[in-house]
Structures are given as C-alpha cells and as structure tokens.
C-alpha cells in the first residue's frame, strides 16, 4: 500500500458493468515525506468517505478489486483508508 493525496473526482456515466455506483477519485501518489511521487491515478473509493484534499492509502492490482463489495470488478487501484496520523520515528528520518 502507498500513500496518496486525493486531488479530484471523476464522473463517468458510461462505464463497464460492475462499476455502477463506484466513486472514482483522482489521486496523487506520495513518497513517505508526503511529496508527490509519480503520475496521478484514478482510484475507486472503497470506503465511500474520501474526498479531495484528504491523505489516504490505496492498494493496487488484484487487491484493489478485493476491496470492492463485488470483488470481480474492473478496478486496479482502490482507496482503502483515510490517514488520521502518520508517525515517523525521529531516529529514522531520511
């Protein structure tokens, strides 16, 4: 799992079967110092609570679809949690 910041929403009315009712968000993956790392992605919101500006963590690949109510959906990135606090031990700061 990786950290990401939600940067926007995606609205799509014509979707593959199984994606009806799935909320899609644009996310920017982050490194562990919370700096952007790599390109933005569209991820399904498996917790139905994330919104723009929030710090979240997401899963990729097969596990993304496992996070959805129907695990056989065409989803390859899914937000599975909102980060309340990130504690990095001072002695292991980069």
């Amino acid at each position, binding site marked *: 799992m990786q950290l990401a910041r939600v940067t926007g929403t995606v609205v799509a009315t014509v979707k593959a079967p199984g994606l009806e009712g799935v909320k899609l968000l644009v996310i920017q993956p982050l490194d562990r110092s919370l700096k952007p790392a790599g390109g933005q992605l569209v991820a399904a919101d498996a917790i139905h609570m994330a919104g723009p500006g929030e710090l979240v963590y997401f899963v990729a690949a097969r*596990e993304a679809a*496992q996070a959805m109510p129907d695990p056989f959906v065409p989803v390859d990135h899914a937000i599975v*949690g909102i980060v309340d606090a990130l504690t990095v*031990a001072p002695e292991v700061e980069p």
Partner: protein
Amino acid sequence: MKLGRVVGTVVSTINAPAFDERTLLLCDLLDPDGRPTGGYTIAVDTVGAGAGETVLLLDEGNSARQVLSAPGAPIRTLVVGIVDAVEEEPAPQAQPGGPA
C-alpha cells in the same frame, strides 16, 4: 519477500473493514546490505515489529490473506518477520587461468 526497515506507523479510523484492529507500519525498502532503495510500503504487522527494526516483508496477496486467515481482504503486504542478520556470499572472483 523483501527486506524493509520500519520507520513509523499509519493511524486510520476510516478504513476498509479488513483493516480494523490491524497495525499498519510504514516501511522503507532495503537492499541486502541494509541501504534504503528509495521505495517504501505500508504493511500490516503480524509480528509486533517496531520503529527502527529490519523486517521481512511478504508482498503477495494470496499468501498475505492466508497468513491472516482473511480470505477476500484487500491486503497484500505483511510484516512477517524481524531480521536479526543478513549474510551474503562474497561475489565470485574470476580465477586466473579459469573461464572468463
């Protein structure tokens, strides 16, 4: 599996149900010499590892779900061991007169 070093924790109250009661550890990825590779991952703890420890990371979904006895959980990466030592054979040296 991969080597990592625990650098912190991720606290989350709003999450997928599979993550309830689980500890998430922020881990830097290491090469066999213990140097950070620059990558990191968030892993579910199964051994009680803490910050600063070198750990063994399992990064495969079916194995992870089997270890947790949680079929269907959207979890792929686990901390499955605390590493005491890593020993490597020295790289083989070319023998004089031997095959190149």
